[in-house]
């Protein structure tokens, strides 16, 4: 497969344009899966989400996760984009895309990437509402999701 494309950036990105670029470069793949995580408005109370990260570690950690995915599944291409900084409801926080010959591989690899990005990539979210600001707590279900991958 081609080397995983990994971008950690503050700027907004156009998920549709990214998907088109990714799919057109995916070559022999018949199956392309994408996941995008959006900022929810939480019933209108959320004003913004601020994402902090550990710059020296972030890309390395994502690279290691993507390489593990490439060992487990036959992927022809992998993309991970993750933003940091201040985001507002509706904006895309991050996106992964996988391409493979078979849909099951593309789906599983994308889920694997998401499960590890959730709990093993050094990002932290702070939610800002009219009532104040609060760090988003990690969910037990996210930690448990990793159990699926042995």
């Amino acid at each position: 497969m081609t080397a995983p494309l990994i971008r950690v950036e503050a700027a907004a990105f156009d998920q549709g344009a990214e998907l088109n670029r990714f799919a057109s470069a995916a070559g022999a793949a018949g199956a392309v899966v994408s996941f995008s995580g959006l900022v929810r408005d939480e019933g209108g109370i959320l004003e913004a989400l601020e994402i902090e990260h550990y710059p020296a570690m972030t890309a390395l950690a994502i690279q290691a996760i993507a390489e593990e995915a490439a060992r487990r599944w036959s992927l022809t291409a992998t993309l991970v984009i993750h933003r940091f900084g201040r985001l507002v409801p509706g904006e895309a926080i991050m996106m992964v895309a996988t391409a493979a010959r078979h849909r099951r591989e593309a789906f599983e690899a994308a889920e694997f990437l998401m499960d590890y990005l959730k709990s093993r990539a050094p990002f932290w979210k702070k939610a800002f509402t009219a009532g104040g600001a609060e760090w988003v707590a990690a969910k037990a279900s996210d930690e448990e999701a990793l159990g699926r991958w042995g």
Partner: protein
Amino acid sequence: MIEILYFAWLREKIGLPRERVETGAATVADLVQELALRDDAYALAFADLTSLRVALDQELADFDAPLAGVREVAFFPPMTGG
């Protein structure tokens, strides 16, 4: 000299994003103990290790990992990426 980094609410509780410390601590746990003795802010921040994670030179590690040769230690809450 070791560079110590703090992130998210840990950074806020301690009041700084990073600092350099001179330490003879053999493991991460020893270093935590040293830091917790400094003052109440540190003591509070490190009160519950199960709510913290540590990375040594940008790699996730356990609290009983040795510090020999390590240049950068980062402490932070469980990650919430994605």
